C-alpha cells in the first residue's frame, strides 16, 4: 500500500561546518581547509501524526539534523519539504513565516532554553505576539492560561520566573511555548535527557497525550533507547553524520541488523536482568574531523572486512528496514 504523502520529507540533507583556522595560519602552516561533515546525506520521511526517533552517540549529528529542520542551519546540500513545500526556501521569504508557526522545537536543556529574565507569561506569549496571532491583552492572557493548563501547569504560574520551577515544569513551559502557534510538527532534541526518570515520565506522557489529541508529528532525538522505544513509530540510527539503519520501531528493537544498532541495544542496562555480564563495547568514538575510510563504523566492528574499510555502504531495504551495511547486504551478519 503506497504511503500517503508524508508531512516531512528530508532528502539527502547534509551540513558541513568549516572549522579551519584563520586563513593566514592555514597558509603559513600549509594546512588544508578543515571541514566537518556533521550531517552527510540523511533522508527520511515522517507521516503525519507519527514519530520518528533519531538515536546515536554524542556528536553523530542528531542535533544538527534537528536544527536543519527548524531552519537554525542552512543545509549545505539536500532539502527538506514540509507538507510538500520547500521549507528552506520558504523560511527565507517573509511569507514563509507562516511555516515557522507550523514547525516548532523543544530543546534539551530546560534550564537554558528559557530566558531567565522573562516571566512564564512573556515566554509563552512571545510566539503569539511575534506572529500576530493574538494581540488583545485579555485574549492573550486567556490563551496563555489555556496553554499552561494543557501542559499540566496551573494558570497561577503565569507571573513566575523560570528559576522558580523544577526541571520537569520548565520543560512543560517549553512545550507550552512550542505549542502556542499550534504547530503540526515538533522537533524534540533530547527533551528529557536532562531530567530524572520520574520527571521524564511526566514529560513523555504529556507529549504522547498531545500527539494523540492534536495529531502532532514528532522528530524525537535521544540516545536513550528505552525512551525511544516508548515514544517512536520509526527509528533512525545515526553514526558519524549518516543514517546507518532506519526501521519501524518493532523491527529495529526485535531484529536489529546493523552491527552498530546491535551494539547500542546491547549497551542498554537491563533493569530486571541484574548481574548479567555484557560484552562491553570496544573502541572509541572516531574523530568526526577525520572519519575512517569506507564504513565509518569499521574500526569498531567485529565483522569488518576489506570492503568495509574501503567502500562506503549506502542505505538499502532489507525487509521492513533500511540498512547501510556491507555485512548485512552480503548476508554475513
Amino acid at each position, binding site marked *: 500500500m503506497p504511503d500517503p504523502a508524508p508531512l516531512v520529507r528530508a532528502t539527502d540533507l547534509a551540513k558541513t561546518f568549516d572549522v579551519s583556522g584563520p586563513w593566514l595560519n592555514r597558509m603559513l602552516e600549509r594546512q588544508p581547509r578543515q571541514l566537518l561533515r556533521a550531517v552527510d546525506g540523511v533522508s527520511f520521511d515522517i507521516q503525519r501524526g507519527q514519530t520518528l526517533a533519531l538515536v546515536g552517540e554524542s556528536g553523530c549529528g542528531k542535533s544538527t539534523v534537528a*536544527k536543519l529542520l*527548524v*531552519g*537554525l542551519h542552512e543545509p549545505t546540500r539536500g532539502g527538506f519539504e514540509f507538507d510538500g513545500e520547500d521549507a528552506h526556501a520558504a523560511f527565507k521569504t517573509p511569507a514563509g*513565516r507562516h511555516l*515557522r*508557526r507550523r*514547525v*516548532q*522545537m523543544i*530543546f*534539551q*536543556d530546560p534550564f*537554558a*532554553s*528559557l*530566558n*531567565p*529574565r522573562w516571566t512564564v507569561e512573556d515566554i509563552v506569549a*512571545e*510566539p503569539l505576539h*511575534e*506572529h500576530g496571532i493574538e494581540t488583545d491583552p485579555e485574549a492573550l492572557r486567556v490563551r496563555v492560561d489555556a496553554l499552561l493548563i494543557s501542559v499540566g501547569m496551573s494558570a497561577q504560574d503565569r507571573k513566575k520566573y523560570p528559576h522558580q520551577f523544577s526541571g520537569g515544569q520548565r520543560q512543560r513551559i*517549553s512545550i507550552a*511555548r512550542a505549542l502556542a*502557534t499550534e504547530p503540526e510538527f515538533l522537533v524534540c532534541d533530547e527533551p528529557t535527557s536532562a531530567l530524572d526518570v520520574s520527571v521524564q515520565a511526566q514529560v513523555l506522557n504529556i507529549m504522547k497525550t498531545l500527539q494523540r489529541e492534536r495529531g502532532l508529528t514528532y522528530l524525537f532525538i535521544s540516545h536513550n533507547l528505552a525512551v525511544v522505544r516508548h515514544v517512536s513509530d520509526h527509528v533512525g540510527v545515526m553514526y558519524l553524520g549518516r543514517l546507518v539503519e532506519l526501521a519501524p520501531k518493532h523491527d529495529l528493537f526485535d531484529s536489529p541488523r546493523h552491527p552498530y544498532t546491535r551494539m547500542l541495544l546491547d549497551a542498554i542496562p537491563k533493569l530486571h536482568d541484574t548481574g548479567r555480564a555484557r560484552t562491553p563495547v570496544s573502541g572509541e568514538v572516531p574523530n568526526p574531523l577525520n572519519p575512517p575510510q569506507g564504513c565509518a563504523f569499521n574500526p569498531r566492528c567485529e565483522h569488518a572486512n576489506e570492503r568495509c574499510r574501503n567502500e562506503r555502504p549506502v542505505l538499502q531495504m532489507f525487509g521492513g528496514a533500511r540498512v547501510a551495511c556491507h555485512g548485512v547486504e552480503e548476508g554475513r551478519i
Partner: protein
Amino acid sequence: MIASFKRWADSDVGHSFLSSPAAMLAAFVALVCVFCSAFAPWVAPHNPFDLATLELGNALLPPAWSPGGNASFLLGTDDQGRDILSALMYGARISLAVGLASVLLSVAVGVALGLLAGFLGGWVDGFLMRLCDVMLSFPAILVALLIAGVGRAMFPGAHDALAFGVLILSISLTGWVQYARTVRGSTLVERNKEYVQAARVIGVSPMRIMRRHVLPNVLGPVLVLATIQVATAIITEATLSFLGVGAPPTAPSLGTLIRVGNDYLFSGEWWITVFPGAVLVVIAFSVNLLGDWLRDALNPRLR
C-alpha cells in the same frame, strides 16, 4: 516597578545588600555625595561659579574652626576667595556628571558594538575586535590627552559645556573597549544558549533577539564594570586636569580643585588640597566598594 522592587528586596542581591554593612555604608555615602552635588545650588552656602560674588579679600581663609577662619566659609577659601565647601559640591557635580556621562556613553557604545560583534560574528566581529586592539594600544590617558587637546583646539568657543563634552568624549573613547569586549564575550556564550535559538525558531528577528533576549542577560558584568568605571572616570578627569586639559578654572571640577590644591601642598594652606582630595577618595572609594559588592552579589557562584 513596585513588583520589581519587591522582587529585588526579596532577591539574593537585595538581601546581600541589606546584610553587607560595607555596601550600605558605601551606598549611603555615595547617595549623600550625589545628593549634595545634584542639589548643589540649593545646598551649597555660596555659588562659587558666580565670579561676581568672589572677593579677593576673602582669599585663603582657613577652615572656620581654625584661628582666622570665617564661619561663613566652613572649609575655608582658596586663592580666589571661593568657598571650598561650595566649590566641592559644585565640583563634585561636574565630576560626577562627567563620570556618569562618560560611563553611560562608553556603555552605550561598548554594549552596542559588543553585541553586534558577538551576535553577527564574521568580519564585523573581526573588524571590531581589531579596532579594540588599536584602541587598547593607545593608553587611555594618551587618547584622552590627545582628544582633549584636539577638542579644545577645534572648538575654541570656550564654552564650558563644550569643554565638558570634550572631556566626556575623550574619557569614553577609551572606555568603551572594555564593555565591548565583555559584552562580546558574554554574547558569544549567550547566543548559543537554547533560549536564543528558541526565539529564532519562533521567528523573532535578530535585532529583536539581540535587544530583548541577549541584551538583558549580558548586562550583569557590564553593570559591575560600569560602577567601577565611574570612579575611574572621575579620577581620569582629575588626571587630565592635572595635565592641564581638564575643566575650565572658573568652573572647577573636583579634579581641577585637586590640581589647584596640589600647588598648596607645601604652603600652609592645607585645606585647599586636603578637602578636595578627601572628597574624591571618598566618592571613588564608596563607588568602588559598591562595585565590589555588586560583583560578588551578581556572581551566583560566590553567593
